[in-house]
């Protein structure tokens, strides 16, 4: 009998703690599949963020380093500079990357650090229970924008791919979504390409992954996927912002 | 004298700090204990510069000088600032082309040399500090001329070594200058 589907080797057997309908688990699996397919588990070091994925080091079989809130790109810089032949990736949420860690992500990109960033954008703070994120949509209700995000009070959503793609050091920038099978497949190829860009030593690569947070959005899991499609994608258009034609 | 506490002071750009450094280096070559402490920070930029140099047979305690046995001044404000801390019986050497007034102190030896003017005449205004150091080592005997030359070789980059004979001439001018 042929095995047609199995857990990637790069994932541990530990049961994940994420809420029902949360897409963190899918994102983890895609990264692990890519690590397996590229055969780089033994040479990969991941950096865990602060946020719901704070302890995702227990889910990956590669070496992992847990970082302070927002500092993953700086930590990854240190790791990569010591062992330039290793693959280093960070896994960061929108509060981590686009609020408290803005300086670190911008400058890691500016320096063209040869790391891969997986940026989970679900438009809300999950772990601290549903506060407004820098990527929260206009009108979106959160525990700290109880009457909806208002531009005059809270400003506008941060568009990370658009921002980082202006920097020369960022060579591969792509936004993907996990709301359906077709997009999940696209997400995987983007993550794979990002790792290949790192392998080729071309510079900084980032994949922004539009993700769901049914619990803090107050929407059921299926509805949450619809919400990504209907509400998030118009604000955060999918596609490649940089490095589409890189041959890797 | 086996022990000298020297303050060299003037404008940034007059070679104040490097004069002190060569002196300390020469002291080290003479197997003395030495320290060199510069003024640092914003006051250096376009303002005054000074350094404290200690050359001693004994271990150097504090590198900060509350009193000095010798003072070299290359501008007026430096004389105003440091004249009072020269020990009785100590010496003040001033660049008389830039420091107009004479020290008020009567209990110290004062030497005035128009070092900047002479350095211009020698074709290199950066020698003014060397001329003044010449007088210092002649009067105090704290280091030898030979150690000074050796220190120049050690502290100057190789591409500037061709200047050493001229620098030694400047040093000797200072040593033998009498007003």
């Amino acid at each position, binding site marked *: 009998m042929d095995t047609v589907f199995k857990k990637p080797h790069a994932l541990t057997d530990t049961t994940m703690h994420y809420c029902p309908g949360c897409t963190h688990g899918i994102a983890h699996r895609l990264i692990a599949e890519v690590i397996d397919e590229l055969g780089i*588990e*033994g*040479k*990969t*070091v991941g*950096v*865990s963020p602060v946020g719901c994925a*704070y*302890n995702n*080091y*227990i889910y*990956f*079989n*590669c*070496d*992992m*380093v*847990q*970082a*302070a809130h927002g*500092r993953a790109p*700086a*930590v*990854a*810089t*240190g*790791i*990569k*500079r*010591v*062992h330039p032949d*290793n693959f280093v990736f960070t896994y960061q949420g929108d509060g981590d990357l686009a609020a408290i860690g803005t*300086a*670190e992500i*911008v*400058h890691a990109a500016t*320096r063209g650090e040869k790391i891969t960033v997986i940026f989970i954008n679900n438009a809300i703070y999950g772990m601290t229970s549903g506060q407004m994120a820098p990527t929260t949509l206009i009108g979106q209700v959160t525990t700290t924008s109880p009457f909806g995000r208002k531009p005059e009070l809270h400003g506008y959503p941060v568009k990370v791919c658009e921002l980082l793609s202006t920097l020369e050091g960022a060579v591969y920038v792509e936004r993907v979504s996990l709301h359906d099978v077709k997009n999940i497949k696209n997400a995987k190829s983007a993550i794979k390409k990002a790792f290949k860009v790192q392998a080729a030593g071309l510079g900084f690569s980032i994949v922004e992954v539009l993700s769901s947070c049914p619990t803090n959005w107050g929407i059921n899991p299926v509805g949450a996927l619809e919400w990504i499609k209907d509400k998030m994608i118009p604000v955060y258009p999918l596609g490649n912002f940089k490095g589409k034609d890189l041959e890797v | 004298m086996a022990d000298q506490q020297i303050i060299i002071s003037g404008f940034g750009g007059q070679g104040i700090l490097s004069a002190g*450094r060569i002196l*300390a*280096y020469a002291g*080290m070559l003479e197997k003395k*204990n*030495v*320290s*060199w*402490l*510069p003024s*640092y*920070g*914003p006051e250096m930029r376009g303002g005054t510069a000074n350094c404290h140099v200690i050359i001693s047979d004994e271990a*150097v*305690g*504090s*590198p*900060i000088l*509350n009193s000095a046995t010798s003072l070299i001044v290359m501008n007026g404000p430096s004389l105003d600032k440091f004249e009072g801390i020269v020990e009785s019986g100590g010496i003040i050497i001033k660049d008389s082309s830039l420091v107009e007034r004479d020290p008020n102190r009567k209990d110290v030896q004062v030497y005035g040399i128009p070092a900047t003017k002479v350095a211009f005449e020698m074709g290199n205004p950066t020698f003014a500090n060397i001329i003044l150091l010449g007088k210092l080592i002649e009067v105090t005997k704290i280091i030898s001329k030979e150690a000074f030359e050796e220190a120049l070789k050690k502290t100057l980059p190789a591409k500037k070594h061709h200047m050493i004979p001229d620098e030694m001439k400047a040093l000797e001018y200072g040593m033998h200058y009498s007003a």
Partner: protein
Amino acid sequence: MGEKLLMKGNEVIAEAALRAGCRHYFGYPITPQTEIAHYMAKKMNELGGTFVQAESEVAAINMVYGAASAGARVLTSSSSPGISLKQEGLSYIAGAELPAVVVNIVRCGPGLGGILPAQCDYFQAVKGGGHGDYKMVVLAPSSVQELYELTVEAFNIADRYRIVSMIMGDGILGQMMEVVEFKDKENIEKVEKNWATTGTQMKREHNTITSIYIEPEILEKHNQKLQAKFALIAEKETRVESYNCEDADIIVTAFGTVARIVKNVIKMAQKEGIKVGLIRPITLWPFPVKEFEKYADVPKAFLSVELNAGQMVEDVKLAVNGKRPVHFYGRMGGMIPTQKEILDKIKEILNK
């Protein structure tokens, strides 16, 4: 021993780190320690090491965290306001038990303060600074030669115990030139770092570097393990210099630059028939408590002289434990006490 060189304190720190095998430096410019970065920028290029001018001190200390995780000997340097920014990272490094060396060439505060010498970060360095129960080994050199020797040793201590070693100096020490004699070969302790995240190479279980333990029982155990380590360090790594203490009328205690001034005071006092001793803590943490216990009955009083409003004096009082009066004399804002000022204070205490 090798050749004698006349070098600036800051440059000697950098050279010592290189000699100790450090090939990774991360920093952000701040006076009065920038010569360390200048030296590293040049030398790391020659040696094929890493020099990164980070976007902030916060980023720099987190790069240190990453490089230390990956098993490297790593250095960052800064001065007081920058060290405040590094506190987050220092707490994480302590929690994750990573070895690293941090230099603080202290300037006067609070706030932006000034750039002149001070010792006002004593509390920050020895009592925590960042959040949580942790310690750093804090080394306080008082000469350029000692900057060299203690910087090399700082790397050994850091690796031996998986802890941060801090070199604490001031602008005088960093900026001054003094003779330094480098050894032909350094004593570099080889420590097996089988915990480092260097990639599993598919030959071992994966390593994790973390400071988060959500379960209280586990976090308490982790803390107990840290405390046991700190106790061991206190036992093994305390360093102190005592001078003229055996029959002193008064024992002055001072560290770093100030201890040099006090040595001059001792000579001045001798001429006036006053016997002054000196206890100079070389490790500010662990504090040389036993040395104070040893001499607590000897003098009429103790006097702590510091470039701050009175910080180490609290540890001196704890160590002297009420056996003798403990006095304090300090200057702030970059002012340096003269020898005469200190001698006058001694005479006042001794009623002479």
